[in-house]
């Protein structure tokens, strides 16, 4: 069965070469293997065929070939995703979008840019910067991650607390539908007629089609940016400061917190010079008009002191800020120094439940002996617990999985989410029924059925159980009872 289907996808190689050119179709097993996973390396599948189209028309033609052959296809951007959203299909075609990487247009007066999907997130900001503008969504991987991938995952970043997510900054999408047709979603002005398919598509993890062009909103670069670092003897004290900042009516650009273990790891990795022996480091970034930021800075300093900070630092020049951010941004990778293996978790709780959930995580850790380093976006309750384990010790990986799952259970219990920014992908589809009812999932999949009734576009992601698009529960056909009796009832 597998062999036959594989052959089917491979048999499309000739047609794909005609579309993309011979150099842009990979059939060699070693070459194909380089695409076997994305940023979530625990899930690996070698695709049957890899194509690298260079234009929207090529993508459409590739998809049409797949659709008519009934072969599944998966789009891939830069492959930095952390939930396995770009894991290939063993019997399918992997469509790599990284050759489409032009910034097509910047209109500084309108604050708009038009880009191809393979463009990296940071290069949009770089293209906008000479005009005093920037592209606000900034996932940590912004140097390499693609805007097309950001659209698929509705990427956030440390600054989404104030500036919003990808979906708040995308105004138009040219897509190839799963049937292979080019169409626009949204009219590029952000004021569309009819259904907001642009909004529904963004964050659909590549299951509704493939993006080929993106109209994004640019934002005036802030006049002033201040970063405050406050060190505390406990996470609770840091948490109090966060609560008081929010209560003071301030919406910082970012509020990040790290616990002792992640501070230790970051210090060892990048010598970021965080205050020694701190149990928690809080980073608060304020941006905006100079006069506002000055006022907020004074308030935030006062609040951080009142919450018992043992040390406060403030930085306003870009180099100093980058130095402080380096510790936070290195935290994930740095944890590799503390542990041979680890799981990066991505759960969300209402911000006011942070203390309770962190206590729960500490208890889980104590009970199991599995260490957990906590790095989190404190402003919006998005936790990134790093669950550390030694894969050389039998059973420890499984135990780490259990702890990791129990953390998600706690997030759900407190009314949060199983993913704040990494997506569901292949990694978390099994948790979806814990967060959503069967009816919720069924209803979401109506959208899938509208876009991709044959379920060929990135199948097996997000939803644990695919819906059969042919069945329409509860619908009846027959004469309208009132009209049958000739009455007009309204």
């Amino acid at each position: 069965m597998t062999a036959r289907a594989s052959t089917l996808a491979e048999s499309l190689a000739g047609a794909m070469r005609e579309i993309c050119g011979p150099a842009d179709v990979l059939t060699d097993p070693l070459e194909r293997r380089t695409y076997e996973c994305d940023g979530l390396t625990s899930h690996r599948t070698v695709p049957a065929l890899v194509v690298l189209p260079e234009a929207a028309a090529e993508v459409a033609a590739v998809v049409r070939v797949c659709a008519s052959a009934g072969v599944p296809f998966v789009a891939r951007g830069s492959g930095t995703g952390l939930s396995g959203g770009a894991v290939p299909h063993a019997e399918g075609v992997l469509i790599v979008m990284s050759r489409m990487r032009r910034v097509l247009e910047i209109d500084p007066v309108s604050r708009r840019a038009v880009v191809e999907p393979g463009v990296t997130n940071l290069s949009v900001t770089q293209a906008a910067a000479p005009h005093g503008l920037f592209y606000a969504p900034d996932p940590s991987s912004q140097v390499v991650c693609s805007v097309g991938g950001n659209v698929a995952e509705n990427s956030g970043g440390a600054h989404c607390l104030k500036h919003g997510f990808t979906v708040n900054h995308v105004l138009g999408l040219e897509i190839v539908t799963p049937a292979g047709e080019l169409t626009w979603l949204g009219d590029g002005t952000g004021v569309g007629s009819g259904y907001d398919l642009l909004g529904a598509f963004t964050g659909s993890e590549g299951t509704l089609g493939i993006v080929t062009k993106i109209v994004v909103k640019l934002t005036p670069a802030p006049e002033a940016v201040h970063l405050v670092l406050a060190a505390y003897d406990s996470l609770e004290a840091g948490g109090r400061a966060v609560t008081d900042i929010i209560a003071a009516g301030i919406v910082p650009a970012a509020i990040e917190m790290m616990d002792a273990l992640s501070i230790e790891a970051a210090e060892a990795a990048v010598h970021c010079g965080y205050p020694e022996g701190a149990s928690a480091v809080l980073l608060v970034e304020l941006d905006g008009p100079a006069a506002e930021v000055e006022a907020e800075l004074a308030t935030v300093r006062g609040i951080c002191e009142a919450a018992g900070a043992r040390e406060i630092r403030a930085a306003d020049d870009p180099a100093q800020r980058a130095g402080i951010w380096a510790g936070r941004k290195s935290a994930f990778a740095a944890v590799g120094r503390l542990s041979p293996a680890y799981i990066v978790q991505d759960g969300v709780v209402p911000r006011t439940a942070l203390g309770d959930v962190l206590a729960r995580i500490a208890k889980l850790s104590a009970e199991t002996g599995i260490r957990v380093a906590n790095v989190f976006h404190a402003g919006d309750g998005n936790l990134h617990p790093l669950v550390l384990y030694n894969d050389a010790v039998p059973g420890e990986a499984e135990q780490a999985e259990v702890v990791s799952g129990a953390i998600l259970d706690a997030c759900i219990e407190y009314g949060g989410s199983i993913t704040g920014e990494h997506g569901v992908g292949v990694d978390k589809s099994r948790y979806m029924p814990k967060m959503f009812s069967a009816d919720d999932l069924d209803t979401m999949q109506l959208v899938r059925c509208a876009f991709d009734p044959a379920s060929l576009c990135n199948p097996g992601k997000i939803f644990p159980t695919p819906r059969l698009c042919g069945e329409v529960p509860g619908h009846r056909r027959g004469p309208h009872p009132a009209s049958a009796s000739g009455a007009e009832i309204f």
Partner: protein
Amino acid sequence: MSFRTDAADSIRKELLAACGEVEGSVAFPASTEEAAAVMRVAAEHELAVVPRGGGSRLSWGTPATRCDLVADLTRMSSVVEHSSGDLVARLQAGARMGDVAAVLAAAGQEIALDVPGGATVGGVVASGLAGPRRLRYGTPRDLLIGITIVRADGTVAKSGGKVVKNVAGYDLGKLFAGSAGTLGLITEATFRLHPLPAARAFVSAEYGPMPGGSGGVVPPGENGAVSVACDAVAAAANSPLVSSAVELVRSAPGGPILVGVLLEGSAEGVQARSMRMANLLGKAEVAVDPPDWWPGAPRAVDGETLIRASFWVSALGQVLDAVETTAGRFGVSPVIEGSAGAGVLYLRVGGEAGAHAVAGFVAGLRGAVAGERNAGQRGAVTVLAAPAPVREELGGRGGMDGAVPGLALMRAVKDQFDPGHRMAPGRFPC
């Protein structure tokens, strides 16, 4: 309006069993469960259903071609949860925005949409209504973080939740925001909130026809006011001073143009920013209260045609010129107002203009502003509300919406959610 047949009597009995309050052909569910029961009865009898909140925008768009049952959500009027520490509020669909605002204001918070107090939560979401501050905060779809809906067949479903950061599953809230009741009933919505600003200032300026004139009509393209006003709008919208709104009003084509900017923040900050903004706009006034011409969310008075033009801000001058030229050609005199800095203007044409002229104006403007939609994606002209004769005239001229990108997919979505086409049938787009 009442049920009159034997079948209708039994329908009413079933509806009464479903939700306890039925008047004529209007059911008033008091909970999501009751709304689901009502929808199941409607599905059983294949009734066409029109959802209703405050009812103020029922006449927008194309009217439903059939309506057997109105599902009125106004009994579902509670603030289910206001978690001020999380800046989140969960609301029933029939809650009035004014009542909600009062509850949130007690904690110094708000839903940052400038909508009328009498509008309901569900109505605002379903119509995608937003006022001047859309520039900074967006529209309902940007502030909505969770939604509960009842499908045409009575199935209850939710998506999102009560945390702002959440990418689990498809976002049904986006789909239902602006869906005008055509996909199902909205019964609950959860919004992210913003702190009420400590201070605000309105900076406004007037750009008249060239000096020396006595308000006489200046030919389009030679009207210095347009280019000066456009520069002011762009400067205000692009300024790092962070404008919450950049509004423009012109009460008649060729007339003076009013530009107003709203700044929000701390008392000291707003004071400093408003001085600088006033310099940016030229001879400008700064006030704590909105100028008397400050627009709210778009509204249509009976008999008027309400048109929305959306565009890239760099095309603002072309849009204003096109309005002037086209209005002159068809002998109409639209009032122009809206969020110029966000690329949205609303044009209101009074009922005294003939339907043929209004439709001609719309089609002409569409040709000038929207161009080839699928190629450019730079602008659109949409009729939000119009009297029947204008709607009929528009029939052969692009209709209310003109060419809409993604229409085939929209129809497929409609078919999936409402296969019997019973939810506000005939209303755009399907």
